[in-house]
């Protein structure tokens, strides 16, 4: 009990005084995960819409692959990215290993199936006749896709939340491809693991609180946007 209390007190001290190292870790966490989410959104929404609105051979197989990807273990993703970026690996020449860019790549691979899967599900549930109706109103193919995406904006915002939530809290891949290097690739989750290992519970609790606040803040914002668009 004493341990927890001491930890919380220390955490508040850290938060109130604003430790520059902690601030940097938090900002890097946010930067890496938001970048990965942004890239996943562009690719995931395009892919999910394309698969959701068309019919082609092997479609079901592809969908089952995406569904599997939605539950891919971050450590496995980390391992694969690591192998590719390793000095002698296929993409070793890029010298990306142990950089924030490598972490963005890994987190992108984790979140893109989630966002694709959510988009796929939301576009599939739109009445097939809605496509006909929009085309009959005079929409070109691109205009139709845009209108359908706007129509499924509520589930799409849920996709953003799920995608971002999965990677901001992920530790395995970031640890493996980032390396938890001070001032370079140390993010909140990897720092929490390290501080806990060192027995520095106060710092670990402080970092955890910051992580929770970040996740909560981003989700609060997205929920606000989502519910606003529902009632408007």
């Amino acid at each position, binding site marked *: 009990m004493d341990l927890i209390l001491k930890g919380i007190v220390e955490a508040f001290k850290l938060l109130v005084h604003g430790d520059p190292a902690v601030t940097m870790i938090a900002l890097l966490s946010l930067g890496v995960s938001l970048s990965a989410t942004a890239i996943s959104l562009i690719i995931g929404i395009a892919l999910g819409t394309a698969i959701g609105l068309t019919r082609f051979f092997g479609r079901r197989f592809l969908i089952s692959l995406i569904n599997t990807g939605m539950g891919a273990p971050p450590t496995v993703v980390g391992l694969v990215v690591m192998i590719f970026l390793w000095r002698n690996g296929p993409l070793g020449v890029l010298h990306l290993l142990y950089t924030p860019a490598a972490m963005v790549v890994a987190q992108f691979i984790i979140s893109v199936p989630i966002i694709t899967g959510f988009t796929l599900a939301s576009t599939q549930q739109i009445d097939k006749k*809605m496509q006909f109706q929009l085309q009959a109103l*005079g*929409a070109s193919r691109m205009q139709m896709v845009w*209108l359908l995406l706007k129509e499924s904006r509520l589930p799409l915002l849920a996709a953003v939340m799920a995608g971002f939530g999965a990677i901001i809290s992920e530790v395995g891949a970031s640890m493996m491809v980032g390396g938890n290097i001070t001032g370079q690739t140390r993010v909140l989750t990897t720092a929490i693991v390290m501080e806990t290992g060192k027995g520095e519970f106060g710092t670990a609790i402080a970092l955890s609180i910051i992580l929770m606040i970040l996740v909560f803040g981003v989700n609060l914002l997205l929920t606000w946007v989502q519910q606003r668009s529902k009632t408007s």
Partner: protein
Amino acid sequence: MNPGSGGTAPAGVTKLTVAYGTRKVLDVPALEVLPGEVLVVIGPNGSGKTILLLCLALLLKPTTGTVSYLGQPVTGQRQILRLRRRLAVVFQESLLLSNSVWDNVTLGMRLRGIPKNEVKARAQKWLERFGVAHLAKRQARTLSGGEAKRVSLARAFVLEPEVLFLDEPFAALDSPTRQALLEDFEGVLRETKVSTLMVTHDRNEALALADRVAVLIGGTIRQLGTPAEVFNFPVDEEVAVFVEAGNILPGKILSQTAGLAIISTDGREIEAVSSLPVGMKVTICLRHEDVTLSLPGAGPLTTSARNRFAGRVTRIFPVGSQVRVTLDCGFPLAALITGRSLEGMGLKEGQEVVSTFKASSIHLIGHHMT
């Protein structure tokens, strides 16, 4: 409504087929929507009505065959987009987007690049015409079924289409809502004289709106004609069943004198106006409402009806505001009478009654002699 007899058909198909794998679901050698007419395609569920409409509205590519607009065959994607912007489609579901009613009604016009002031004027006009102008600011998803349907109709009419396509537009509505909307809609069609193709399985809608009726069964058009022709003189038994031709009985022509034929059915003889040859097998169609019932011993009826059969009531079943009384006269025969007549005669199941019907009320479908 008086469809223009001249001019090129606004829309039509030739040698159209649609197949899913090896299964052919639609085979229409030729069908045209004439200028200014309301062509109603009726048929049971799964007969291919919606597929035919989607092909004509350029929303579904047929497996083979040609779709034409104003006599010109449609080819190429660009041409399809351009032509789609000259027509309008209303589906059974209202299919409104999660926006305001105003945004929904103006969407098509905005997609078609109609000038802003024109957009406003047309939307106002048609929302008022369909009685939903007061809902303009409402969220589309908060509307009732009837309101949403009116909005979706307004959304089609603001486009001032050259051809209007309607896919079971009133099917999902409750009866009073449907009746009110049907009457409004009939008025609008009469005013605008827009060339219209509507598919439905409801014969009352066809009777209320159609200039011509096409009966689609099993992917092929079995009959095409005025509503009176199709409903009174079905060309085959399946059409007769679908248009609810009433009593449908098998028979054979025994004799033929001066246009009056005697037909046997279940050993009883019926007289009918017909010039079909002796020996031919026929299907006898007789509308329920053309059969009159009277009590035995009510004295000889002063009627020109040539057919008179005594029978026993086997079933009494309410149909809307009327009652269908089924008799066994040696062959099954049903009559449609008012509830008041039923009460007046005090009819009950098992009771003896006399049925009469005119020789001219019978429509015979001749079968090929083998």
